């Protein structure tokens, strides 16, 4: 398993805040939760209408999604399982090499 399977269950979510209230809620949320910002590179760049792509560890996805649902902040799951995505891509390379 790539990277000792550390990304199993990790997800990448996309949030597009649609109000200043949502922006503030997100900033507060990410102060108390460790996520890996893919885009933008930090909370200070969160703006209305701009995508926020975050890599969330498997132990935090449930809590984060629950919080987003409670605060009616819409999100989209870009990558449902990072480990599987990486393994899939590695598999394509192996089969290409075999061919």
């Amino acid at each position, binding site marked *: 398993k790539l990277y000792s399977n550390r990304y199993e269950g990790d997800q990448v979510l996309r949030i597009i805040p649609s109000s200043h209230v949502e922006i503030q809620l997100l900033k507060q949320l990410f102060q108390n939760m460790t996520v890996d910002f893919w885009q933008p590179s*930090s909370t200070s760049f969160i703006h209305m209408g701009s995508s926020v792509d975050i890599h969330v560890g498997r132990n935090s996805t449930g809590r984060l999604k629950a919080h987003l649902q409670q605060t009616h902040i819409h999100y989209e799951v*870009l990558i449902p399982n990072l480990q599987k995505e990486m393994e899939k891509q590695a598999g394509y390379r192996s089969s290409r090499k075999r061919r």
Partner: protein
Amino acid sequence: SEFQYDYEVYHPLEEIQSWMFEMNRTHPHLVDMFSIGRSYEGRPLYVLKLGNRKRLHKKAMWIDCGVHAREWIGPAFCQWFVREAVNSYLHDSSMRRLMNQLNFYIMPVFNVDGYHYSWKTDRFWRKTRSKNAKYHCRGVDANRNWKVKWCDEGASLHPCDDTYCGPFPESEPEVKAVARFLRKHRKHVKAYISIHAYAQMLLYPYSYKYATIPNFDCVETAAQNAVRALYSAYGVRYRYGPASTTLYVSSGSSIDWAYKNGIPYAFAFELRDTGYYGFLLPEALIGPTCMETMRAVRAIASGLLKKC
């Protein structure tokens, strides 16, 4: 036997370095490899100089890839560029003209320590790997460590943050080495390009403030031509403009430093995609991404040969 290298897969650092040695060995008339220093962990910082050596005092273009470790499409593009430049020299008259009239300095992996770490341990590592005396967190954002409005808006003073600007400007040996090289060659280097991912954008100064650069007309035209050339490959749209308004305000960036250092054309590319795969851009998309970006970079290089 002919050297076989797959340009449509991602390569670990050691393979990229072996490839650089091989390019240097097999194309002595067009390629010159040298080191500009060592990384924090002691790795050499290799640069390839491309161009017809017979001509002296040529204008030059600098391209660096892999400032942020997890952006693997960057080093893939740098390798693609070198391959295209040397392989098409004989049969492509416009590439031959570029290589005859310009020098290209290509740094395939800027953040060698971070890149190696992203292969071995943490695929999504961004920063360098320098240690911090007071905190357990490592690394500095190499695109916040340049000496231009250092650690102002858009950068963080906290060592554990991904946009940590470092203890002082050019604290990172990688940044210091490139800055020293560009300062030394400032008379000839007329274009600076830094390759990043992902967002599908072409950015120019300023990053640190909302203001128009003095040579806006020339740079904007160059950017327009570049994205048009890029679009002509596969119809992929890139946004372009000043980094502060097109992306976000950030201080201490390499393009701002390059511009302030007298390089009139300073660009940052944010390559594919816009988030579907993000940093996990599949290897099947390396070819199209690199091909379209090649057209854009060639357009910028061609622009250097004209007066503006």
